[in-house]
């Protein structure tokens, strides 16, 4: 089970800031995003491949090939705009 967090415009589009997600192993960031996109509702639109979003695994920026293990904290968010 993964703990998946959403921030900013993606959190608003999905209407939730966190959820537990079960993914088949071996899992990767790319696999998780595919699984979420295949869900009904706002996921496909919020995580469309032509939309800009970023992923962090255990609070560190990660690419699509990053492996995931049970208990990981995965965050999905738009490009950052601080400063």
């Amino acid at each position, binding site marked *: 089970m993964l703990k998946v967090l959403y*921030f*900013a415009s993606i959190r608003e589009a999905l209407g939730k800031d966190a959820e537990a997600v079960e993914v088949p192993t071996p899992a990767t960031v790319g696999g998780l995003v595919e699984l979420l996109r295949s869900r009904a509702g706002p996921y496909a639109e919020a995580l469309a491949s032509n939309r800009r979003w970023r992923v*962090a695994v255990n*609070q560190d920026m990660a690419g699509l090939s990053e492996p995931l293990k049970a208990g990981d904290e995965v965050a999905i968010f738009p490009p*950052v*705009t601080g*400063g």
Partner: protein
Amino acid sequence: MFTIRVQQDDFDLSAEHALIRARHRDVGAITSFVGVVRDINEGSGVSEMSLEHYPGMTEAALTKIVDDAAKRWKVIDATVIHRVGTLQPSDPIVLVLVASRHRGHAFEACEYIMDFLKTRAPFWKKETTPDGSRWVDARTADDDAQQRWETK
């Protein structure tokens, strides 16, 4: 040990500056950058801005950015304070102080920290305009500013 804080409250530039000077006798230059909320963005008036962040990752990302700067330049001390929550035009958002023996290192490290903060630290701005509220889009100019450090 550098100072990294994420807070709702305003910060006191003079007080943070004095703290650094009180801690070190070998500092010859302290650069400071203060980011401020503008009342205009992308052609629309902005009456209010709210900042969201990712608690935990934000502090870790800022710490790594400052540590990386200290590997490139001779940084004696540094302070990064970033505000979150609701802000008004003219409110300060972010403070970066970099102390070094000479100004060259302090200037460059300060700019490096801001460029990476803009592209790597998990903050998101939402602004209120006459047409309603909208999430601020990331700017490619910020990516370019960060990229230039890769080739130096």
